[in-house]
């Protein structure tokens, strides 16, 4: 087992190296200097390799070890093709930190994540979608040498949801190439993504959010029971939430700073979300719409750039796979159902309140989330009430609301029995919007403090001017 863990770490070290190159290519950042930067670099590597790998598979390659090593080395070296710009000096935060609070939250977070790593590395592959769909596709890629049409075009394997996106099977296939078919140790893979997400979140907000504001929220995310459980399931919902959350944070940085590196990372993580699960289309669509609308108010060029990057992400992560599945007659399990059938929707409006109730119940379930979601929503409300940077709250609330509406629409139009569909998926599909909302809580709370506490802050001046106008 130790050997397999080391092999898995080796695979992930390659992904980290790839991400270092991607980060360097994307922006002014220097090679990761802090632990939190490593998290962002690692996830950039996972996203890049995870988006490119399905393209390689479609091109006829089969993700052998040399191919994976070449890909990661290529991404690493690509970062050195351009001269890295000097990073802009980081903003200095005005607020001091309460070290006791920070150390307590960081200590409990670290201890719980270490325990979770041990627990997860002993977890057997038993969740049905994992053993019957996601992981068998990864095994098939390795054992059959890529996307063998005898399997991927076969009705006999239709139950594997062959038309679903390939990021996670590709990632698992890479892991299998490194360590063999150890499905127990494989459970560490999504945990690595989750832990790296917490670090990346810290890295992305470091110059905007005091550690005293950041760490209690990071702790609440780390301990949310449903995130631990879903991470240990080998389902793709937590990876989707991770990429979606990062896309949101990078999009927010792009709106605030106009830094093209942030825009590039937004595009990369949006592409990864699209390549992870079909729900990613709802969530990325909602986020993209909000970003474009908010950007439009400040700069049309920035709005067009945002839309262009979203289009590029779709072209990279959605279109090739959709074309490949059509060309190769891949059995199609996903359908829009009756989403565009007015008569069906009109006849089933009774589904809406039930769906809204179930989704809200699951979002607010303290046994699943503790108080994370209410706290995230409280941060949104406080930001709307007290912060001068209300566009941040609008971004979060709008993206969350549109994502929620998209999920309601999906269940409203489902061709399946509604209760069965909700019962088998509702607790999972809400993870991405919930984590998105929670991840922005530190940003929103810091905005409130900045607006309220510092007479010299531009945010405070803006807030007072706005109040004077009323």
């Amino acid at each position: 087992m130790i050997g397999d863990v080391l092999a898995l770490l080796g695979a992930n070290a390659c992904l980290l190296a790839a991400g270092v190159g991607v980060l360097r290519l994307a922006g002014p950042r220097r090679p990761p200097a802090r632990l939190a930067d490593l998290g962002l670099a690692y996830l950039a590597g996972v996203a890049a390799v995870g988006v490119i790998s399905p393209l390689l598979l479609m091109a006829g390659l089969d993700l052998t070890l040399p191919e994976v090593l070449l890909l990661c080395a290529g991404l690493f070296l690509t970062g050195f093709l351009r001269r890295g710009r000097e990073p802009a000096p980081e903003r200095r935060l005005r607020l001091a930190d309460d070290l006791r609070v920070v150390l307590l939250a960081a200590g409990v977070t670290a201890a719980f994540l270490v325990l979770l790593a041990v627990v997860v590395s002993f977890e057997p592959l038993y969740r049905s979608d994992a053993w019957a769909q996601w992981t068998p596709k990864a095994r098939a890629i390795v054992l059959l040498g890529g996307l063998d049409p005898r399997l991927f075009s076969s009705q006999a394997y239709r139950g594997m949801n062959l038309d679903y996106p390939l990021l996670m099977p590709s990632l698992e296939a890479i892991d299998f190439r490194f360590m063999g078919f150890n499905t127990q140790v494989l459970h560490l893979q999504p945990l690595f993504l989750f832990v790296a997400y917490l670090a990346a979140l810290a890295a992305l907000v470091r110059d905007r959010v005091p550690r005293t504001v950041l760490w209690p929220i990071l702790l609440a995310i780390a301990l949310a029971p449903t995130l631990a459980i879903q991470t240990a399931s080998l389902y793709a919902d937590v990876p989707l939430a991770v990429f979606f959350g990062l896309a949101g944070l990078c999009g927010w940085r792009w709106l605030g700073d106009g830094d093209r590196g942030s825009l590039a990372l937004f595009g990369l993580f949006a592409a990864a979300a699209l390549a992870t699960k079909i729900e990613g289309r709802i969530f990325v669509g909602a986020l993209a719409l909000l970003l474009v609308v908010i950007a439009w108010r400040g700069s049309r060029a920035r709005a067009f750039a945002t839309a262009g990057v979203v289009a590029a992400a779709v072209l990279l992560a959605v279109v090739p796979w959709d074309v490949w599945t059509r060309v190769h007659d891949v059995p199609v399990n996903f359908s829009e159902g009756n989403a565009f059938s007015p008569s069906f929707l009109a006849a089933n409006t009774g589904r809406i309140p039930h769906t809204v109730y179930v989704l809200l119940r699951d979002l607010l379930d303290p046994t699943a989330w503790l108080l994370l979601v209410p706290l995230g929503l409280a941060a949104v409300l406080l930001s709307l009430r007290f912060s001068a940077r209300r566009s941040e709250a609008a971004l979060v609330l709008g993206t969350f609301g549109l994502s929620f509406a998209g999920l309601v629409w999906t269940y409203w139009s489902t061709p399946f029995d509604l209760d069965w569909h909700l019962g088998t998926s509702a607790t999972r599909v809400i993870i991405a919007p919930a984590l998105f909302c929670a991840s922005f809580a530190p940003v929103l709370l810091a905005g409130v403090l900045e607006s309220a506490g510092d007479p010299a802050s531009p945010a405070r001046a803006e807030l007072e001017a706005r109040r004077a106008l009323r």
Partner: protein
Amino acid sequence: MIALPSSPGAYGTALIVAGLVLGSALGWVAWGRLRRLFGGGGAATTAVAGVLAVALASSVGLAPFLAWRVVQNLRYTSRIQRPIVERIAAYENNLDGAAFDKVARIIPRHATFYVEASDPVRMNFAPWALSALLPRIAVGEPAQAQWILTLAIDPRTLGVPLASVRRIPTGYGDAAPVYLARVAR
């Protein structure tokens, strides 16, 4: 997680109650400290301090219970023997995972097979076979297959000429017979 306690039980409940009490005390202290840190008693700073204090209190307070819960899971999973652990989905679905190893030793790699179970109750037989027998390739019709694998169905009833039929011994789960037949070519 496969063996999370379905209910807290006495020990878990005690941890929750103690955690809530300690968490509340911690939250109260943290709220005061954070309010002072954020610069006074304005509504905004008080509310932000409150959100952070609740986040801290609920998480730290329940951390012992959450840790206890996953440790209970670990106590179970760490005892599962290696041959079982890789086949646990089969055993969880009332199938003998080892029986598929026997089948895999008989069907050559990359050969084709057709798989069917007798009724929807045994719906996980085929999905497990599709995964466990890779790189052998399943096909949609018995006539296209080199081998036929069935649960509780006599392969001779599938209308395909067979060269041989054997029953795969099982030692766990569904008592219905598992048949493996080679199609005559």
